[in-house]
């Protein structure tokens, strides 16, 4: 039995043991305090693994090909960033690299670092700082914005050149969903509890 403050109205509640898929609500403002996730660890791990596979595909396969008559240009996710870098748009290149490549990877690796030991009931060092870091970088993962940008450019450029979406685009699109599923499966409450209890 422990307490949780409502993040809307700051009323402190005692939390009773929760069955799976149950939702704890604030008695005063009816805000959702947290949801008890069923099978949280398994689901998070499963989505994270799927996400990693998709991530590898998205990074290593050609992303977009643009064809205009004899001009044929093919870029991957990383080569695109490299091109931006070479063209001197270094802040943008850095931003894209961080939000779309590095932070999703950190998120997934962080999840693995937390959840694999949880699943196996072993203890690892720095689990809590890692989970804290994971929480911190979460808002900086902006793959969906990148995807949106790509969709806009496909529509805009479609008149000027033929755009051939590569395998990586599909993988990237799926990765957005899969990563979100993985994040949604994370029962932070439970994780904190377990980490605290463990240490």
């Amino acid at each position, binding site marked *: 039995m422990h307490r949780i403050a409502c993040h809307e109205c700051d009323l402190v509640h005692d939390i009773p043991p929760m069955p799976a898929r149950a939702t704890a609500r604030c008695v005063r403002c009816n805000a959702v305090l947290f949801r008890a996730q069923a*099978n949280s660890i398994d689901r998070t791990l499963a989505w*994270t693994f799927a996400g990693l596979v998709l991530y590898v595909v998205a990074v290593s396969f050609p992303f977009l090909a643009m064809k205009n008559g*004899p001009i044929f*240009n093919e870029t991957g996710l990383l080569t695109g960033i490299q091109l931006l870098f070479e063209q001197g748009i270094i802040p943008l290149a850095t931003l894209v690299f961080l939000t779309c490549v590095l932070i999703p990877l950190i998120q997934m690796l962080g999840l693995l670092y937390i959840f694999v030991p949880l699943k196996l009931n072993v203890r690892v060092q720095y689990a809590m700082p890692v989970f804290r870091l994971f929480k911190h970088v979460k808002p900086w993962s902006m793959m969906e914005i990148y995807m949106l940008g790509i969709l806009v450019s496909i529509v805009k450029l479609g008149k000027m050149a033929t755009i051939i979406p590569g395998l990586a685009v599909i993988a990237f699109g799926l990765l957005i969903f899969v990563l979100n599923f993985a994040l949604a499966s994370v029962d932070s409450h439970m994780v904190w509890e377990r980490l605290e209890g463990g240490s």
Partner: protein
Amino acid sequence: MSDGNSEMKHAEQAPEAVVQTKRSFSIIWVVPIIALLIGGWLTFKAMTEKGPVITITFETAEGLEAGKTKIKYKDVEVGKVTAIDLNEDRSGVVVSAEMSPDAKPYLTDKTQFWVVRATVAAGKVSGLGTLLSGAYIGVNPTTEGEKTRHFKGLEKTPLVTEGMPGRHFVLQSRELGSLDLGSPIYYRGIKVGQVVGYDFDEQAESVLIKVFVNAPFHVKVRENSRFWNASGIDMTMDATGIKLNTESLISIMLGGVAFDLRQHDPPGEPAEKNHTFRLYPDKDSSKEETYDVKRYYVMFFDQSVRGLLPGAPVEIKGIPVGEVVSVKLQFDEQKLDFKIPVLIVLEPERLDIVVTESGEIVEGAEKNAEVRETQEGSNLELRAKQLIEKGFRAQLKQGNLLTGQMFVDLDFYSDAPKEAFEKVNGYTVFPTVPAPLEQIVQRVENILGKVEKIPFGKIGQELQATITELNATLKEVKNISGKVNEETIPKVNASLDQLQDTLRGIESTLGPDSALNYNTRQVTSELALAIRSIRSLLEYLERDPQALILGKEGDKK
């Protein structure tokens, strides 16, 4: 909370049931498995689709870009450049390329690679598309040859790619001249092919030019076709005016090759692939006959052979039967003498008509057979001996008075001294007679000899004596003239003075102021008056003859 309390109450009353947690496999793990399967399959596909990696060496990587430059055959992409590096000694570049998997069977040592760049040259503009898309690597795939992964790229675009209908031929020429890759091949003014390559032959003696004649014209290349260099302008001037003859304007600028049969040649079999032809320098020379039977003779000349060059004709009665092969200078250490051995070749096939020993008249192909037969065996030597015995001799003659070119004339000289039949270095010696010029020189020498016999010394002495006498005579003449000067001329002078006086007297008598002159003028005027009055009288009498009797009418009135 209330629910939990009631449950707890129940539990107090009844034994707790065994809770069996189902540790079954969570369905959620299907997701990463599917993802892994798809990812694995994609990777596997990508791996298997990855074609063979080849390397091509080029002199320069101009226009090539790793990851961008394609390898194309008939404009279909069959590969992609993945990396460009310098080779070890930095003399060229090594281009690594990934080919598509179905290109595997074509990667043999006969397969050619070259870089296609935009080319703008006279008569040809190509690869303009590469200006926008960048250069690409062209490939001429062939399954022939041994499989390899390392290629040497061509620096020039080969012009014929495998599979084009047509046929390759080889032209042998002394020099390439104005021909180049892509130079057109003309058949009766129609462009039917092009030069696709050139190289030295093994001894580097001549140039072998590879040409490709497109279908369906390749069958027009017969075994007896003649190829000639059609570059430039052929200008002929005759009674009808100036005639310009050229295959096309492009061939003037770029050079070109034309072929055809000679006018009276029957068409032979279509030539096989890579049949070698001789490339004639121009159309006229392509028309000349070629002769297979060649007989070599050596002639020794004592006189100057200035103007006799290799290639000079050997003629019988003005008809060429062969040519001079070489003119050399020979020094005889024994006799301390120079001689000039001239090697000639006779082409007996040039004889048009032959009357055989049996009196048969043969012409054309039969004649050639007869000639060839004579070529073999001792028949030839016998014939040569007979001819030499009959006085068949060679003589140097002036062919062109302006340039001093000479030719060898063969003819019968029945009065020529007998010559032995001999051989030098395996060549039959053809006896010679001195040239007409030499004979003239001989005659002039004879004349000079006679002139020498004239006793110019004696003539001179006599002449001197005569001159002395003449001198004496001249002195006498001088004496006489002196006397004339001294004696006769003063007298003549005096006479002339007297004559002058006399003339002056006459002048005073007859001068304008003299009395005689005045009187004469007076008499003359009087006489004129008298004549005038007589004339008027006569006129009056003519009008009035009666006046003679009746007197003047006026008087009557």
